[in-house]
């Protein structure tokens, strides 16, 4: 669904009869074109195609298509893409300048870059489009017939072994198309251009000889003449419905020594139209009708619309991003301005000349200054000032009892000298001071005459 279409039509385009398959995301169905329904179906399809709702795919005949696997010993796909046309030119029976070329399935392997190159003549494309136009169809896709059949067969009957040899024989009114490959890849397509009627009538004609010879060669190429390898041969196309004819074709290969397993695909007549519809829907078709010269106007319009939508989406997203950026920048600027205003107001209350960006530092300096100034207020309003502390110290000394002869009290510093009756009163006083948060050091000396204990006390405390 890469191209965004919900519906695709596949038309097995034939001068005598047309099979139309409609593919949607959910179903694939054959449209009834018998009984004069074709003009009505055709008009409906073309209306959908022209309005850009559906795609229409026809086959580009295998007989007019050159398909070659190409390989170039490079590692860059871009460089390989420039070399492929030169390599293909050698292989083509017509000038590459007059060709429409496609390079499918470009992939890298150990030995270089591989692709499946397809080429048709521009003249053949013009003829096909004229024929389609005459029939009332203007296809959006002209898919390579042999590739479409091969891939559809692979999709409907996936290979168990990737290297298993497989041949698909598609029989139409005017030709037998033999496609060979493996479970993994398409290798080659061969066309036997004989009308179906000729096959039926000319029992011993050279057509049968050609058939046997070509098939033997193809099988040998496929198996490398190893007769132990078996080959699966799938039969499809309108001719595959003719049991007797198919049986005769199969029997004609009895001389081949390689074991052959024959199977007829389900609904063999519509394999091609199914393939065309599916590949147009999932955008896997090898569409020769591409590029400005050949592309269907509806697809060009669709592409232009898609491009327009993409541009509109880019413009829309860009506008949203720009708006978000504007809003975010506006928000950040406003937020910063608001916080700055608050900060200026708060800092100027403490440090009136605080410069912008230095508010915190200025406030810290101002606060250090104010801390000193405020200490006088704190002292003034402190009910338990140094007076209370002095009273507590002296009261504790009296209770101990300790006799003080000299005392000096300063903020957080205390020194005293005096006498005590013994060590125990001193210890009691010391304990009281320690309870009040003092770090106390006492030096004592005994008076040998009076036996009194003389002391010297020094104490400090943490600033509150």
């Amino acid at each position: 669904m890469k191209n965004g279409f919900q519906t695709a039509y596949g038309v097995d385009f034939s001068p005598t009869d047309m099979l139309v398959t409609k593919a949607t995301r959910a179903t694939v169905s054959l449209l009834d074109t018998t009984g004069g329904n074709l003009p009505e179906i055709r008009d409906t399809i073309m209306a959908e195609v022209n309005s850009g709702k559906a795609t229409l795919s026809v086959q580009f005949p295998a007989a007019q298509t050159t398909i070659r696997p190409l390989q170039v010993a490079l590692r860059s796909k871009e460089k390989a893409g420039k070399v492929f046309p030169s390599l293909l030119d050698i292989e083509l029976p017509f000038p590459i300048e007059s060709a429409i070329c496609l390079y499918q399935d470009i992939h890298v392997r150990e030995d270089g870059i591989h692709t499946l190159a397809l080429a048709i003549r521009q003249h053949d494309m013009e003829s096909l489009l004229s024929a389609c136009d005459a029939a009332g169809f203007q296809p959006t896709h002209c898919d390579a017939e042999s590739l479409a059949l091969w891939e559809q067969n692979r999709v409907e009957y996936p290979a168990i072994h990737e290297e298993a040899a497989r041949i698909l024989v598609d029989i139409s009114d005017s030709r037998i198309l033999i496609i060979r490959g493996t479970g993994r890849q398409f290798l080659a397509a061969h066309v036997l251009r004989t009308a179906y009627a000729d096959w039926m009538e000319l029992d011993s004609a050279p057509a049968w000889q050609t058939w046997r010879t070509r098939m033997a060669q193809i099988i040998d190429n496929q198996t490398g003449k190893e007769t132990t390898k078996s080959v699966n041969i799938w039969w499809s196309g309108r001719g595959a419905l003719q049991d007797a004819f198919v049986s005769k074709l199969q029997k004609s290969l009895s001389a081949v020594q390689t074991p052959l397993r024959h199977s007829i695909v389900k609904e063999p007549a519509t394999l091609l139209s199914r393939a065309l519809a599916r590949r147009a829907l999932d955008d896997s078709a090898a569409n020769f009708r591409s590029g400005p010269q050949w592309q269907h106007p509806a697809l060009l319009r669709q592409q232009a619309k898609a491009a327009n939508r993409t541009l509109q989406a880019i413009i829309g997203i860009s506008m949203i991003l720009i708006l978000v950026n504007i809003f975010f920048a506006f928000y950040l600027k406003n937020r910063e301005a608001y916080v700055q205003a608050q900060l200026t107001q708060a800092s100027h209350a403490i440090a009136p000349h605080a410069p912008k960006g230095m508010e915190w530092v200025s406030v810290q300096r101002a606060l250090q200054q104010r801390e000193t100034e405020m200490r006088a207020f704190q002292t003034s309003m402190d009910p338990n000032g140094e007076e209370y502390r002095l009273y507590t110290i002296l009261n504790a000394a009296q209770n101990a009892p300790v006799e003080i002869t000299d005392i000096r009290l300063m903020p957080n510093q205390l020194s005293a000298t005096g006498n005590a009756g013994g060590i125990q009163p001193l210890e009691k006083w010391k304990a009281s001071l320690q309870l009040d948060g003092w770090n106390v050091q006492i030096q004592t000396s005994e008076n040998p005459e009076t036996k009194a204990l003389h002391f010297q006390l020094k104490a400090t405390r943490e600033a509150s």
Partner: protein
Amino acid sequence: MKHARYKPWISLVLALVACMWSLNTMLSASKKLDTIIRKQSDLTKIRLLATGWTAEQQWSAQLDRIQAWRADNLEILAEQALGIGQAHIAYQKKGNLPYDWQHMEATVETKNALFMDVYNFLRMASSSLPPWRLQSITLTAMPDEHQVHAKIVLETLEKECH
């Protein structure tokens, strides 16, 4: 659709502008956000500190309300507590304080005073409004029992009367 041909260029220019602007926003936004967060943090800290002076401010306002701009005269208190001429008092202006207050200091020296008188003097001084607060004191016991030599440093707030 004359404008259609310009559409790719318009979208390209818009996309480039949007991408460049977004890139610039991404690179600069974190720096700007950091700045805002730092300022917000500074604001919170400053507001917290600003509320720390409420008690001092209230004390100043309370003194202003009752017009208590000068502490009691120390000479009078000393006469009452220690006796006439017992104390030598020296005043010193320590500096200006917030809310138009001044920091005053007084040194009181007395010799041969009873300890209880010294204590009463301190109590009376601290009962003044604004109070005289004890900053430091040195008491030296005299040979005569109960008498001390005292050197007292007091401090107070003072405001010029309006």
